């Protein structure tokens, strides 16, 4: 029997603008099994990114439960949630969001600054992560010296360097050309297949979604399938 890595139960998320309430997710349920590669699709404003943020623990539901890797994320305090994020989730952004003043290795090493690892161990792990994404030869390059695809691969290395159980990706190919997008998707497939990472990916791109094992469609905050 497959255990679930992500369990979203009756989740509601309402944003407040002044006195107006804007419901984004409305009693949503989703289960992602361990080792799955799931794509979340849907039109703009459907709540894809909001759901992804809840799974990644960077936002909290208005009501309902978000259980990721056995932890009810909504019940954690702010600092416990930060610690949980550093250990359990790797986040891949659409625009890579690398720190421009840090080299590729230093960017990858960044999450490890929160651990008790020595500088040497941090450096070794960062180098390993860069090897996994095929960028060992770009270790000392700065983001401005890398192509978009390479930047995203560094961002993926940063996401996996702490060996999280879950990877969440918010349109990881949205800012890339077709060739680079293909490379990134292949890399994500490899991480799922070879490293058994559970991946939840938001995308608009049907070709990207096809690489996932399961596709879910959201519309107006409700999961259609």
């Amino acid at each position, binding site marked *: 029997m497959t255990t679930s890595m992500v369990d979203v139960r009756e989740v509601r998320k309402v944003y407040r603008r002044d006195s107006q309430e804007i419901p984004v997710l409305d009693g949503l349920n989703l289960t992602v099994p361990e080792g799955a590669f799931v794509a979340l699709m849907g039109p703009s404003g459907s709540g894809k990114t909001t759901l992804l*943020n809840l799974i*990644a623990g*960077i*936002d909290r539901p208005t009501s309902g439960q978000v259980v990721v890797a056995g932890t009810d994320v909504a019940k954690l305090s*702010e*600092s416990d949630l*930060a*610690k949980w*994020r*550093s*250990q359990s989730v790797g*986040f891949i*952004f659409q*625009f890579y*969001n690398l*720190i*421009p*003043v*840090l080299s590729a290795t*230093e960017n990858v090493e*960044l*999450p490890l*600054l*929160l651990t008790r690892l020595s*500088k040497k161990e941090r450096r070794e792990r960062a180098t390993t992560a860069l090897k996994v994404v095929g960028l060992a030869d770009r270790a000392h390059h700065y983001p401005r010296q890398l192509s978009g695809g390479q930047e995203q691969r560094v961002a993926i290395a*940063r996401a996996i360097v*702490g060996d999280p159980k879950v990877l969440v990706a918010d349109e990881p190919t949205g800012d890339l050309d077709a060739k680079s997008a293909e490379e990134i998707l292949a890399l994500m497939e490899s991480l799922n297949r070879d490293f058994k990472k559970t991946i939840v990916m938001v995308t608009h791109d049907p070709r990207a979604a096809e690489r996932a094992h399961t596709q879910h469609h959201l519309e107006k905050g409700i999961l259609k399938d």
Partner: protein
Amino acid sequence: MKFLPFILKHLRRNWIRTTSTVLAMGLCIFLFCTLQSVLAAVDSLLASTSASRLITRHSVSLVFSLPFSYAGRIQSVPGVKRVATTSWFGGSLPAKKEGKTEATGEEAATTDWSNFFQNMAVDAEPYLAMYPEYEIPPEQYKAFMGDLRGALIGRKLANKFGWKVGDTFFLESFIPPYRKADGPFEFVVQAIYDADPVKHASTDTSAMFFHHRYLYEATGRRLAGAGTYNVEIEDPDKAGEVSRAIDALFENSDAQTRTETEKAFAAGFISMAGNLALLLNGIGLAVAFTILLVTANTMSMAVRERRTEIAVLKTLGFNSAQVMGLVVAEAVFLGLLGGIVGIGGSQGIMWMLTHAPGIKDALAGIGITDLNLKPFVAVVGFGVALFLGFAAGFVPALGAYRSRITDMLRTV
């Protein structure tokens, strides 16, 4: 410490902004340290004064002398213990020797102004009696009192020129009535005075005293009077009463007097009778506040520019306190650099002031010989720099602390 490279890299990101902020901070600390050091030097000068000593001078200006006959009349005022004739000689070391004709043209230019120091012609016996802080070995005191050309010099002055008892030196005044036709005044070091470093720490030992009679005799008895009269009184609490009585004595004379405490005189002498401390502190405070605003604005800009990065850091697992700490640390580091620049600059300007011939002489002439950056002032200056950095970084850091990841990512 593992976050230090991260902080340094951020500071290097916009090096023009970082440099200008550090320089602004440095200017603030420079002004603070320099102004406080000047105040400390003035305070030190004023601290060496006594409440039981008064100075009587011409009511119009120090430039005008008072008749010698005033000494006896002041002595007769009730409450006056002793009176000493005093004239600020304004002598400096000349390059030529006694016996030559009066310096003219090229010769006059050979006066060594770079070694100017405070030198006074005094009525030695009463003068030294009213300054017990000057510690003179009895045999040297006796020798000094017995030699018309004798000079009493402070330990610091003796060390500066390597003078010892028995040495001879020459001084030439720039005040015309105090110059003699046959060349500079010759002096023989007969005594060296010290001051207790604990009880009288602020007593200046870089001055020189000689007999007023020597000045009078050597100038052909042409002197019309003395520069000032130092007056010791019986009761310090009656300083105001005695001062008024002395001035009343000469109210209807051609040379009216102004008598004040030694402290007030010293403050007036260095043109600082006004609220110098208030003025200097006011300037320092205004500059510090301005720099605080500039630095706070710089840090706010830096944080605003990095909203996405702060969101990324939080997403990666940095908690709000850690992110706040990074921002504050960056600002404090700016303060640290500014402090180093400011204190270094202040030390540099102090060195220049105390080594530049013209300025050094002017300061020495008014008794300020100890102008330097005090360790305490440097430590306080450094503390101010760190505080400014902290204060400037706190508000933007608080913003970073409170910001929500999703809000910051949404503004990309």
